[in-house]
């Protein structure tokens, strides 16, 4: 039976059309996946169904839930529908909950505003719902506050709020994007189970085709506010599909072709050569708050005796879940923080930590971070941002040399030299990441640390950035330390991989070997959790 029908939906914000001719339908007990890149209108489609569009927008067309037209309802009636008939889950579990209310109160609120049950009854339903989303009251009492839970657990609370009244339809907008692969796998399983148990319809919105492929029955592919392709998962993956869908599929399984054949390295020679970066028994500890005035100070070991090395021109991946110490390790390697033990050697020279860092180490080692917007000063021009690392050179280039260096790197990363006078907000996410790479490149480093550098990008842009990185690596002989939670990306671009858990490297080796024959159980579970495009192109 068809539960939700969206037909001929048109939405515009401030007169600018953002959704055109959207037709979708969801059946009871079925999952509709909506896939698209950022700006494709997938979230706006969800907000249209909820009638929670931003101020200044107007919607036309038809949306029917179980035969009831949602556009015909008044706002108070719509408030009754939200939470009772339609539940919604959002992308950001860290901020989706009110930090000042206990999780029990927040789940109970859904029940209290829609029903007349007694306080005790509401509490009973709350506990039952929390148990249903696998937050058993014994371990997670409802008196807990959001800040006491992890991202995955918070997302379960948001799910509990959405399903407490067994809605007919659940909308999940990128529910697992901000989470680790293992948590993602568990949550997708949970959602699937809830759909089966309660005979709900589910709209699963994601930028990741693989996430949707394993969970959905039907798929709609969106771009620029239009549904380009829709149909059953089987047809999308095996039958004839829209060229854009093919493009998406290829981009998400993209393996950059390296244009220079990797020369067979002589193992003995490598052993003799000084590694470019050598990390020896590195320890980074944080002081924990004292238990009491006279209790001993306790420490948290975020990085626990980590050792590895990177040779010239080598691409090494570092994978692990959030909180495993990846970012702390990055900062320690860069010398941004003091270390409590071990050593970091760059070209055989010890990396200085804390305030007095060597210029040479700045020049040789650069970094690209995840957030391409947050890592730039918005008030500086591209020219100033990109040429900043030049101060680390021993001989300061003159104005003309600076301009030439700037023009060269901008061109290398695929930007125009006329972009030099623009500001960072004038660029898209992918272009910003190119600027970040240009900034890392300008001082001719031997090592670039890429900290989740492509994680925030759309698949097609990600594919292009990966190609660029591979090309730069071979033409400038740069080594990469590629840090990511995305295993498929790491697999496609690195020669060797390190797997990190709880501050330790639990496994390392040739990338292909590790992925094909993982030895450590943790590596195995990580690899198994990665959503795969089961019907391979």
């Amino acid at each position, binding site marked *: 039976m068809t539960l939700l029908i969206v037909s001929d939906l048109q939405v515009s914000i401030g007169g600018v059309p953002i959704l055109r001719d959207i037709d979708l339908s969801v059946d009871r007990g079925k999952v509709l996946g909506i896939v698209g890149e950022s700006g494709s209108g997938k979230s706006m489609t969800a907000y249209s169904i*909820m009638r929670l569009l931003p101020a200044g927008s107007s919607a036309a067309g038809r949306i029917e839930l179980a035969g009831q037209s949602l556009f015909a309802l008044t706002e108070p009636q719509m*408030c009754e529908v*939200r939470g009772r008939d339609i539940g919604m889950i*959002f992308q950001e579990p860290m901020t*989706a909950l*009110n*930090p000042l209310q206990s999780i029990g109160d927040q789940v109970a*609120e859904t029940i209290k505003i829609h029903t007349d049950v007694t306080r005790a009854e509401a509490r009973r339903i709350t506990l039952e719902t929390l148990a249903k989303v696998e937050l058993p009251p014994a371990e997670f009492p409802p008196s807990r506050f959001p800040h006491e839970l992890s991202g995955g657990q918070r997302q379960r609370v948001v799910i509990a*709020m959405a399903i407490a009244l067994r809605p007919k339809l659940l909308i999940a907008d990128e529910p697992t994007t901000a989470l680790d692969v293992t948590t993602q796998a568990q949550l997708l399983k949970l959602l699937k189970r809830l759909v089966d148990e309660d005979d709900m319809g589910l709209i699963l919105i994601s930028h990741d085709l693989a996430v949707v492929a394993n969970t959905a029955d039907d798929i709609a592919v969106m771009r620029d506010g239009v549904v380009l392709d829709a149909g059953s998962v089987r047809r999308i993956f095996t039958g004839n599909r829209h060229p854009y869908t093919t493009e998406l599929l290829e981009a998400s399984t993209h393996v950059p072709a390296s244009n220079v054949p990797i020369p067979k390295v002589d193992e003995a020679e490598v052993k003799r050569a000084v590694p470019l970066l050598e990390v020896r028994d590195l320890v980074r500890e944080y002081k924990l708050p004292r238990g009491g005035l006279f209790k001993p100070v306790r420490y948290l070991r975020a990085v626990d005796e980590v050792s590895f090395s990177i040779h010239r021109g080598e691409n090494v991946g570092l994978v692990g879940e959030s909180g495993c110490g990846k970012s702390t390790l990055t900062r320690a390697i860069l010398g941004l923080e003091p270390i409590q033990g071990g050593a970091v050697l760059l070209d055989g020279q010890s990396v200085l930590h804390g305030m007095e860092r060597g210029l040479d180490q700045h020049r040789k080692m650069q970094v690209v971070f995840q957030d391409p917007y947050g890592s730039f000063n918005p008030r500086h021009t591209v020219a100033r941002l990109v040429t900043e690392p030049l101060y680390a050179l021993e001989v300061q280039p003159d104005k003309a040399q600076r301009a030439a260096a700037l023009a060269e790197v901008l061109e290398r990363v695929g930007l125009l030299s006329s972009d030099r006078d623009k500001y960072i907000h004038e660029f898209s996410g992918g272009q910003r990441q190119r600027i970040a790479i240009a900034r890392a490149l300008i001082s001719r480093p031997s090592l670039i640390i890429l900290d989740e550098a492509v994680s925030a990008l759309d698949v097609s842009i990600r594919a292009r950035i990966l190609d660029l990185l591979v090309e730069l690596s071979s033409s400038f002989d740069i080594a990469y330390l590629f840090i990511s939670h995305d295993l498929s990306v790491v697999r496609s671009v690195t020669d060797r991989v390190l797997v990190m858990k709880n501050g330790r490297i639990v496994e390392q080796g040739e990338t292909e070997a590790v992925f094909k024959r993982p030895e450590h159980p943790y590596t195995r579970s990580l690899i198994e959790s990665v959503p795969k495009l089961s019907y391979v192109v």
Partner: protein
Amino acid sequence: MIRFIARRLLSLALTLLIASVIIFLALEVVPGDPASVMLGVNAQADTVAALKEELGLNVAKPVRYLNWVTGMLTGDFGISYTYRTPVRDMIADRMVISFPLALYALLLSTLIAFPAGIIAATKRGAVADLSVMGTTQLGIAIPNFWFAMILVSLFAIKLQWFSAGGFPGWEAGFGAGIKALTLPAIALALPQASILARVMRSSLLDTLGEDFIRTARAKGLTARQALWHHALRNALIPVLTIIGLQFSFLLAGAIIVENVFYLPGLGRLIFQGITQRDLIVVESVVMLLVFAVVMVTFLVDIAYAAVDPRLRRRM
């Protein structure tokens, strides 16, 4: 929580100790000696010396500091050099005006600012918002002594609803006392209310843009319910900081308004003390104000903890 309060009390005591040293030293280096000021320029040297002896000004400085601090701990603030009456009584007389006045002004300011801020935030960009923003702009810009004089000429002289100044004392009855403090409280509250309303508005606007408000709407709460149940308490945290700062300011910063209304408050006492080199009065009043500021900060910290569970745990 108890450990948190204990720790805060300890740091509070330390702050007060450091403040007392600084106040004492600062006033010691101020030129002018109380004995000569009291006796006038024509006084004979031996008379001045005798008075100095009597006032205890000849004792070594560390000893005088210790006497002062231990005296305050036992409630003895010393004897005023000028008036020869116990400083404690002088402060107590003024406190019964200044403390209720500060509270009254703060209450008015909060009562005006909360609704104004909430209305402005919910009706962002509409006439209500624009008029709140305009009025508060004006409220901050107008000097409060001028506003006080306008109030006097309108309500005291023309309409004769209130008296133009002075304080009948609480013996005349609670109503009469409050009536006498009303115009000064309004004059003091206007700029404070304007600042507070703006802070409330921007804090609430920030909170209304948060993800959890969207979550609340998705649960089926109306916009108004989401505001009252979720946004307001979250928006309160920066507002509490401002309220704390304002109270400390109102307690001592009312000198000008006290002068306009002839109110014998703390502000005037400290002003007189400075002009007459009545160091012991100045020291004691300043110390008292430091104590009030530190106490208010302490109370605001506890209020934070009551509002925000994240802080409760860190304690």
